[in-house]
């Protein structure tokens, strides 16, 4: 089987395209995981529409989850630098 020939330019564009798609796939994976977590926290009954408080809860859930993540990483770094 012979390999197709790509110019360097083609290769660079292909690499950028693939990187962009991988970034999208990572974002979607995070969105799936956070929807799972925040659905359990914020939506108890299923009604005809998400009500305002559920929708606010979902958006806050995302932001506080990310805050928690930053908080943990920052605290770990503080611990490490103070122990050196």
């Amino acid at each position, binding site marked *: 089987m012979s390999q197709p020939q790509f110019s360097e330019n083609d290769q660079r564009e292909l690499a950028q395209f693939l990187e962009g798609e991988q970034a999208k796939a990572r974002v979607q994976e995070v969105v799936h995981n956070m*929807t799972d977590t925040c659905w359990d926290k914020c939506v108890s009954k*299923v009604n005809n529409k998400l009500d305002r408080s559920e929708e606010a809860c979902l958006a806050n859930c995302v932001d506080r989850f990310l805050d928690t993540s930053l908080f943990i990483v920052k605290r770990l770094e503080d611990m490490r630098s103070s122990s050196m």
Partner: protein
Amino acid sequence: QVRSELALANAQELINKINEKCYLKCVPKPGARLENGEQACLSKCMDRYMESWNVVSRAYVARLQRESQGGNL
């Protein structure tokens, strides 16, 4: 082609999650068939889950944009 595989994987994952969450909520005692009430619950639950996915997605993308501008991620 990569793009359509990604869309497919995304749809598949969404279907799996809805199946898991909504089956748990709407079919507490599985009987000899899916009852009308269970089907109605599944429809609503599915719509709410997709709405939630969109709310979460918007909030996450907005946050990523704020962080990348502020630079403190």
